[in-house]
């Protein structure tokens, strides 16, 4: 993001191809001009503008084409979760979101149609340079503890249970462990630390759900997923 100070009481910021101009009109009001029109923010004192990264609001449904796991095997990988980018106006200890960029707009439903959860849909990729991505990297370990080959084509990760770390080599989240219970049925556990590959991790966003650090999804006899906080 490029920020340019203009004539003392004005500020110009470029945000993903869009241009914003912030003008201090009086002691309590800032005018925000962009291609989309004019709006106003009621803030006092000195103001500044920056960009913030955050998880999407909904859980992520990450779909693999199909992963086959031999009995008793385990695999580790980095999974990419897209992050939203927000243009924030700060004044004193207050912050106002001015704009938000969301790359992934497709949604998917996880669970039975009458009882499930709306997720952001993400198609998993395995071939990419993990340290050259703008997305958050989820250290993921998938384990098949059973005695037969099992398949996994999708998992659901709820960002409410994850911390986001800003590291010298990218953005990372807490570790996530998936136990494949049977074909396409899985339990998810959220770890309390990030990958050792993350250099100098600093917590950018803390866990938003305070009650559960570990969440297990189980299926009842009717095939309905139940999320249990442990």
């Amino acid at each position, binding site marked *: 993001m490029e920020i340019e100070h203009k004539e003392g009481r004005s500020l110009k910021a470029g945000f993903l191809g869009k241009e914003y101009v912030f003008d201090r009109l009086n002691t309590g009001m800032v005018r925000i001009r962009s291609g989309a029109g004019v709006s106003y923010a009621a803030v006092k004192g000195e103001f500044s503008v920056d960009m913030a990264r955050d998880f999407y609001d909904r859980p992520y449904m990450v*779909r693999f084409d199909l992963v086959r796991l031999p009995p008793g095997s385990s695999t580790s990988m980095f999974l990419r979760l897209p992050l939203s980018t927000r243009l924030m106006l700060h004044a004193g200890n207050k912050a106002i979101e001015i704009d938000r960029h969301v790359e992934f707009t*497709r949604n998917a*439903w996880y669970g039975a149609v009458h009882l499930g959860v*709306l997720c952001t849909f993400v198609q998993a990729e395995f071939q990419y340079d993990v340290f050259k991505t703008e997305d958050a990297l989820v250290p993921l370990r998938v384990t098949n503890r059973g005695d037969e080959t099992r398949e996994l084509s*999708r998992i659901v990760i709820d960002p409410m249970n994850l911390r986001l770390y800003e590291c010298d080599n990218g953005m990372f989240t807490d570790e996530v462990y998936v136990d494949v219970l049977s074909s396409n049925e899985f339990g998810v556990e959220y770890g309390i630390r990030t990958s050792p590959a993350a250099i100098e991790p600093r917590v950018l966003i803390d866990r938003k759900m305070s009650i559960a650090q570990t969440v297990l999804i189980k299926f009842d006899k009717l095939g309905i997923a139940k999320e249990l906080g442990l």
Partner: protein
Amino acid sequence: MTDITGLDVYVLYSQYTTVIRAVLILVAGLFAAKLASILAGRLTAPKFGGHVSSVTKNITFYVLAAATLFAFLGVFNINLTGVLAAAGILGIAIGFAAQTSVGNMISGFFVIADKPFEIGDAIELEGQSGYVLDITLLSTRIRTFDNRYLRIPNSAVMNAKIVNLSKYEIRRLDLVSRIAPRDELAKALEIADSVIRDNDKVLVEPGHEILITNISEDKVDLEIRAWVPRNKLFAARTELLRSIREAFDAAGIG
């Protein structure tokens, strides 16, 4: 000038104390009834929701208020048997006069217990659709989508077919797109599939389906079934109908 004897003073005193006792019973009884009703409302609210809580609160209050009234009358040695007999006759008379209201009231209890919808839900009922504003003992109030106020007696609600539009988060959108039999069917299916995939309101999962539902001499009907979030249903319908038509026109299908 009248002489006031000791007996007169005693009678006067006892009358005053009787009145004071009666007033105290009335005030304390009504106060206790109010307190108990609030308590009953608060206890039921978390488990059964706002509406059941409100009804429980009212019933508790009126039952305790009636008991207070009987206790109040008892202080004056009023024969309650006579009052109850009169109340019974009055009750029958009121029952005949207000049987519709009583029927609605009983239906109201069933509506509350059955919970086909809750306040704030969007429903279709008797050819009308709108948001439920309130469910009282006698009627259900609805604000229709075109902003009219509708009051439906609970007896009608109980007997009506109700569609709750707010019950589930996602809905299946069914559309029919018609093409001419001379058109390339495979190409039309491919185009429709591509348009649906490109629409960000359509859910990736559950996946969409395109069915051929009718082939006749002059038309072929393609039925599209796509899942969308409930609040995007109408926007998705408009977008898909327009996009599919435009794509078919561009490909010379129609």
